[in-house]
């Protein structure tokens, strides 16, 4: 939307060299200082990469620029004018568009309906009626720009995730943005689709549109970015120009120390096969029977793109979803797992992906959260909860996992992400599992807490616990795994030895699509 008064030529006069300037932005959430005095600027027609660990504040920064959050302090200057964005609509008017990390689409509408949602073309004389023909034609045009040659009247839920991602990108392009922000846009794209996306970004740059690119994949950043800025724990920790962009430099700025120290392997893999899957059929998404084994004291990491079927596999092993066939063997004996209770009785636990949704009852006290799985067994007598035992257990686990809190009767939601995740772990470790399933255990928590969780997994492996982890963070995968199992579209595409493989090897297997 062209609300700005000057249709100036791009980037010639000095004050307009920067399309966007961010000055001293701070933002806090309950329990977290997400951004602390961050400043940077964006030139016309350049691509700026924003990197940092999970929880470093990248997504918060994006959401401030997109008008989702209002900053506590600081200034945003667009084309020389100080603006307060404050709402998504205003951001759109200023020409700032965000391609969301989580898909933010309505799958009951058509592709075109999604691209133009909130800005539907209308008939000249019937202002309230959608001109579907124009909408579809316009949509075809934007879709072509991202290389998606599909009929725009197809209902979105018919599309695979990767195409839905491209629809999301088309949506941002369609507002004629001056600044397009990409938040982990390639997390569900194949190599070919990623290439296509880079081409789109270069096209945008050539047309004087600036991009901000967030990604964990440092290789991609090197390929696409003109400049990199690095965030660490909510602060700007450095900036690199095109010729300085280098993997190790970025990591050092991101982590602030050598990455090797995060992972320390001391445990030994035993010979005893703890979990064995024989032709297990995962319902819904998966299209292939799964064969997999995990031995005692072994950490096996499932790697792959979003939608590769890793969570679904874990859910099926744990009985959240009932398998459609195949066998699950524990210690060589077949077990029937129809629901999570069966799995827990067999000695396994699952730390689910979304701790706020599946991992915790956030508006419940920490001690009751920790006690939840064990209530029926040893924390109650004749149906009455034994408060004393609950308190003892909570104290013990809080100490063991070094959970930082004021008191164990504090609500779980008042803790930081890392400590919340530790409560989830505490809850399950209290059951003394022999097989631990974890789904993205370090998503969205800070570096320190991550290292502690790795150490905890290490300790458990030393005790002989078999551990199966799904993780999307390649450094983490390489750091903690004894064995890497890569999945793509519900199929195990290969196994890798972390000692002798690179991130590229994993990505290659993760995008090995069949059709």
């Amino acid at each position, binding site marked *: 939307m062209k609300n700005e008064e000057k249709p100036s030529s791009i980037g010639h006069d000095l004050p307009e060299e920067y399309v966007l300037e961010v000055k001293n932005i701070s933002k806090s959430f309950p329990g977290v200082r997400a951004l602390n005095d961050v400043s940077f600027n964006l030139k016309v027609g350049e691509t700026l990469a924003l990197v940092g660990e999970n929880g470093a504040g990248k997504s918060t920064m994006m959401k401030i620029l*997109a008008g*989702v959050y209002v900053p506590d302090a600081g200034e945003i200057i667009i084309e020389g004018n100080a603006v307060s964005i404050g709402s*998504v*609509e205003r951001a*759109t008017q200023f020409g700032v568009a965000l391609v*969301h990390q989580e898909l*933010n*689409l*309505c*799958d*009951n*509408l058509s592709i075109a*309906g999604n691209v133009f*949602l*909130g*800005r*539907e073309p*209308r008939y000249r004389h019937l202002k*309230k*009626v*959608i001109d*579907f023909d124009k909408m*579809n034609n316009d949509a075809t045009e934007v879709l072509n720009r991202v290389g998606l040659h599909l*009929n725009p*009247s*197809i*209902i979105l839920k018919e599309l695979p995730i990767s195409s839905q991602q491209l629809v999301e990108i088309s*949506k941002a392009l369609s507002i004629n943005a001056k600044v397009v922000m990409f938040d982990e846009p390639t997390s569900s794209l194949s190599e070919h689709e990623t290439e296509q996306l880079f081409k789109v970004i270069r096209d945008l740059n050539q047309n004087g549109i600036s991009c901000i690119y967030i990604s964990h994949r440092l290789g991609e950043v090197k390929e696409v970015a003109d400049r990199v800025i690095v965030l660490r724990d909510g602060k700007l920790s450095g900036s690199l120009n095109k010729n300085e962009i280098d993997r190790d430099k970025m990591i050092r700025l991101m982590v602030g120390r050598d990455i090797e120290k995060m992972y320390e392997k001391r445990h030994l893999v035993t010979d005893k096969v703890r979990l064995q899957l024989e032709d297990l*059929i995962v*319902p*819904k998404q998966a*299209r*292939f029977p799964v064969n997999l084994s995990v031995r005692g004291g072994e950490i096996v990491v499932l790697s792959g793109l979003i939608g590769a079927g890793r969570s679904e596999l874990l859910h099926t092993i744990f009985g959240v979803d009932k398998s*459609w066939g195949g066998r699950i063997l524990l210690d060589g004996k077949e077990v029937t797992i129809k629901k999570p209770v069966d799995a827990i009785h067999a000695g396994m636990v699952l730390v689910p992906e979304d701790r706020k949704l599946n991992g915790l009852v956030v508006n419940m006290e920490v001690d009751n959260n920790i006690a939840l799985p064990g209530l029926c067994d040893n924390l109650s007598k004749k149906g009455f909860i034994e408060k004393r035992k609950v308190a003892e257990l909570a104290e013990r686990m809080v100490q063991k996992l070094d959970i930082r809190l004021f008191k164990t009767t504090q609500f779980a939601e008042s803790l930081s992400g890392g400590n919340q995740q530790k409560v989830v772990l505490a809850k399950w470790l209290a059951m003394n599992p022999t097989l631990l399933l974890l789904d993205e255990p370090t998503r969205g928590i800070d570096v320190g807490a991550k290292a502690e969780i790795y150490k905890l997994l290490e300790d458990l492996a030393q005790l002989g616990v078999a551990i199966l982890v799904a993780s999307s963070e390649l450094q983490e995968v390489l750091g903690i795994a004894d064995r890497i199992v890569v999945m793509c*579209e519900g*199929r195990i595409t290969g196994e890798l030895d972390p000692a002798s493989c690179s991130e590229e090897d994993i990505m290659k297997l993760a995008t090995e699509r*069949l*059709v």
Partner: protein
Amino acid sequence: MNKNNRMIEYIRSMKRIGGITFLLSLIILVTAIINPQFLSSYNIRNILRWTGLFGLLSLGAAFVVITGGIDLSIGSVVGLIGSIAAYLMVHAQWPVWVVLIFIIVLSATIGLIHGLLITKIHMQAFVVTLCGLFVYRGLARYLMDDRTQGYGTGFQSVRFLASGRLPSAFWTDGQAPKFILNWSIPMPFILLLAIAVLMAIVLNKTIYGQHLKATGRNECASRFSGIHTDNVLIIAYVISSTLAGLGGLLFSLDLNTVQPSSMGNMYELYAIAGCVVGGVSLRGGDGSILGVILGTAIVRVLYNAINVAGVSTQLEQVVLGLVILIGVAADEVVRMIAAQRKVRESMILAQKALEKSKQAET
């Protein structure tokens, strides 16, 4: 390609309608076999009249249900507006057109209040409209002093809206040929069709309809797309209450005796039942106007069929509940089976692809 795809989309959406139509035909067929009187013109007229009256309520409820909300106050609004309309015309002797405008404004205001409470105070729709259910019922009883209202033999012109029929009314003094007299369509059903066409256009062609569907499916994404989701929701509740008010007027005109304490009791549940049977998902985002009308027709036909087939009237709600239950369950089961079959097919395809790629390697 474009046309082809549209056809496929159309057929896909028709599948569901086909299922509902099949269920409706089945009920009609079975009842007609048990008692052929079911198909008499008198009985059909009756069903059409009731479908028209209840259909208005279902259409209003449908918009709210598509947003993912619920309106439990419909029945009480029917009672309140029905009594007020009769009272104002008969006792207060307001001119008919003033009464019509007044009750439309009044019922729209009720919906506006619901919408504001839900969007601005962030109350749950269930709670807001549940309170409405109590408040409007009590208000109707208090204002009418629990006295039965009615129009007597007057007000024929406005009562034509509820009790009249077309085209037989074009012949004065009952001069119409017998066939036309028998098969004229009751006014409420004609009104329903007119309003349904209007609402189908709103839902499928207008900006508002698109935003309604989007908000019902993914409110967050809609807000991020710059849609005023609050306004979308508020309008849905206004439409629901307004149609409930209009329904209340027609019900009271048709019945001619309005008991403030009981008129419209449970109607909100019939309205929602019509939506659910008609394929409007309570999860929000899905639904078609044609489906809602067919759904309402199923509920009305069932009621009638139970009487005509000679089932004990004490059992009628049991039958109604069970048929709806089985109908919706069958729909879910069919979809589950279809989904499993789709996955199995794709498994076979995928395995073939894998073998092919292996062969290519060797």
